């Protein structure tokens, strides 16, 4: 019952406080801010009070030891914001005039996104150098707790501890960047190669080929892609048998084909708008070949929407692969990957009250996935905003 009393008390403070706040503003001796408070609607005053209360709760929660996660989240948020800001500042003063101008107009979210993507790329490429151990290396000490402190069951050699069969979790987290991001990138490229070339072909040639491909894509898109991917993975796992790496290859092909349907739709629509242009007519009259038409005339003009689509498609593919791995049918062990790590470590979350760092392990792997997709989305959002010329 005291909880309800608490809530009622806060509501009374907020609702009453908003009115008092506005009234106090109207009584200010200085005439300058008075019109602002006079015209203020009650909702705005309430919003100010709510924001103040939210700030107060945040600060209060920040100093509660039991929810150390919240402190980490706030610290992480502030750190990333500062890093994005510093990166934008760097970009404004270093580089060619072109990039400097680009950075000058860039919002903070986009700068943050580009920074995160760069960091992921570096970690993925240099995983072999950065990781302290190999991803398949098994040590005799299993279930070492994270933290590196021997008194609390840690080991200074394994900063994040080891898993059930004794593999170093930090190394696996770093290799996860290589495997998960790398495989998602390859899949997206494959999907684009397939979808864009077929889409442009359908747009240029038209006729029965266009009809056939479009109707085929319609039917494929009528099945939710994660569901269809799971169905096909069942069959692929029967074909692959005990050869685990083959299953990963099948997964790449399956997801690439399923995702190429979306790329096909977009590139066909974009291509169809370009094909009717006069310069295409001129090129056709010159007697240029089909490959020239597609790669030298259509592709350069469809560049901007396709690039934005590439970012979004990458997010979808990345999330699909993570979901499949999380469900246990995606990237197969011994390859380290974030989705599988989340599933394997998920039980640790119940130790949050005892050992917060242990409980944070599954969240780290899941957060690594989330951070990259958020970053890519921020960048795509900014790119779309720029290319569309939207101002409000």
């Amino acid at each position, binding site marked *: 019952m005291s909880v309800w009393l608490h809530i009622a008390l806060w509501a009374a403070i907020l609702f009453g406080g908003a009115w008092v706040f506005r009234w106090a503003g109207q009584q200010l001796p200085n005439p300058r801010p008075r019109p602002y408070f006079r015209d203020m*609607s009650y*909702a*705005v005053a309430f*919003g100010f009070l709510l*924001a103040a209360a939210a700030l107060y709760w945040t600060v209060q929660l920040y100093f509660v030891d*039991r*929810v150390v*996660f919240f402190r980490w989240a706030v610290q992480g948020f502030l750190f990333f914001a500062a890093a994005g800001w510093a990166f934008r500042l760097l970009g404004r003063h270093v580089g060619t005039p072109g990039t400097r101008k680009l950075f000058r107009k860039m919002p903070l*979210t986009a700068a943050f996104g580009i920074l995160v993507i760069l960091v992921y790329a570096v970690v993925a490429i240099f995983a072999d150098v950065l990781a302290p151990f190999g991803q398949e290396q098994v040590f005799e000490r299993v279930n070492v707790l994270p933290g590196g402190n021997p008194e609390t069951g840690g080991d200074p050699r394994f900063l994040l501890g080891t898993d059930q069969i004794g593999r170093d979790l930090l190394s696996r987290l770093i290799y996860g960047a290589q495997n998960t991001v790398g495989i998602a990138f390859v899949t997206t490229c494959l999907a684009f190669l397939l979808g864009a070339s077929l889409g442009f072909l359908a747009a240029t040639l038209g006729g029965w080929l266009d009809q056939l491909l479009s109707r085929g894509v*319609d*039917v*494929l898109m*009528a*099945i*939710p*892609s*994660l*569901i*269809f991917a*799971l*169905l*096909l*993975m*069942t*069959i692929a*796992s*029967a*074909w692959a048998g005990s050869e685990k790496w083959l299953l990963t290859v099948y997964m790449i092909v399956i997801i690439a084909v399923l995702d190429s349907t979306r790329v096909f739709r977009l590139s066909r629509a974009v291509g169809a708008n370009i094909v009717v242009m006069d310069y295409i007519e001129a090129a056709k009259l010159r007697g240029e070949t089909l490959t020239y038409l597609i790669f030298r005339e259509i592709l350069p003009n469809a560049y901007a929407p396709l690039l934005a689509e590439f970012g979004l498609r990458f*997010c979808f593919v990345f*999330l699909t692969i*993570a*979901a499949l791995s*999380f*469900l*246990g*049918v995606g990237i197969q062990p011994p390859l380290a990957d974030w*989705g599988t790590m*989340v599933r394997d470590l*998920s039980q640790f*979350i*119940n130790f*949050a*009250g005892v050992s917060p760092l242990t*409980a944070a392990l*599954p*969240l780290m792997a*899941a*957060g690594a*996935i*989330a951070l990259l*997709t*958020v970053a*890519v*989305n*921020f960048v795509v*959002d900014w790119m779309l905003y720029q290319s569309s010329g939207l101002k*409000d």
Partner: protein
Amino acid sequence: MQSVARIIAQRLGLGLVTLFFVSVIIFAAVNMLPGDFAQAILGQGATPEAVEAIRRDLGLDKPPITRYFDWLGGVLQGDFGTSFAAANFRSFTGAETGSGLGSVAAQVAPRFENTLFLAGVTAAIAVPFSLILGVLAALFRNSIFDRAANIGTLTSISSPEFFLAYILILFLAVLNPMLPSLSNIYADMSFGERLERTLLPALTLTLVVTAHMMRMTRAAIINLLASPYIEMARLKGISPLRVIVKHALPNALAPIINVIALNLAYLITGVVVVEVVFVYPGIGQLFVDSVKIRDIPVVQACCLIFAAAYILLNLLADILSILSNPRLRHPK
């Protein structure tokens, strides 16, 4: 009204045709399995006689086209065939299970109900929530609130479902034990208890779908704010909230309804991962389990159900947007 009825009939027909092709694709995909079902059921060490018996039992000795129409005919009558796990059990015991436990339909039906319950709870929370948030974002556009809502929704839309799910578990189940982190639901549970167990997965799904709906509501309303009749309402001296709720919102309803229906369709895929995280006994959980043990008839049935629901909701979005926007009834 004549034309509306005709358009709806046309769309329904198109949906049925799509569903037919989808069933063909699912059947064809399943038939690409190496070997055949009988081998898959019994495993490596099966005697040829046993394989032959099962093959006859399941009708595998007939040609694929006959089998497809047998399967389709069964599905139309609510009979999705026999689960492998059950068929395997029967082949060992030799007993004819008359209880109907082995049929796929008996496995799927109660779980389908649970999933509908989850989706219903989610929709009941998410739709009003995102509408209110969207209207507020449009009302206070370009303010700090709008930016914060924009960044927040973009973050939640691009995080994987399991990340959101575990964060909710961490804060609402482990650190502050308010809700149960496992949603084991039984048939004879009271409604309140059932709701309590469903709340955490429903909240996760709400976070996933709210973003899209809220952004669409905001965009659809802001699109209209430049129109002359809104200008007129503003000049009359109506309050900004009233302008948006009474004048802009009804005209923005078509795209909003469309996006709500599409997001409910999206729920269908999101439900799979979320059900696995919370061990919710829904159809998504059954689907993933069957994928792992390769129980093909169940996988086939679940896939068909998911696809049918997806097509139906898309169809609904289509029809509702035609009904709410008369301009779409007369394509140029």
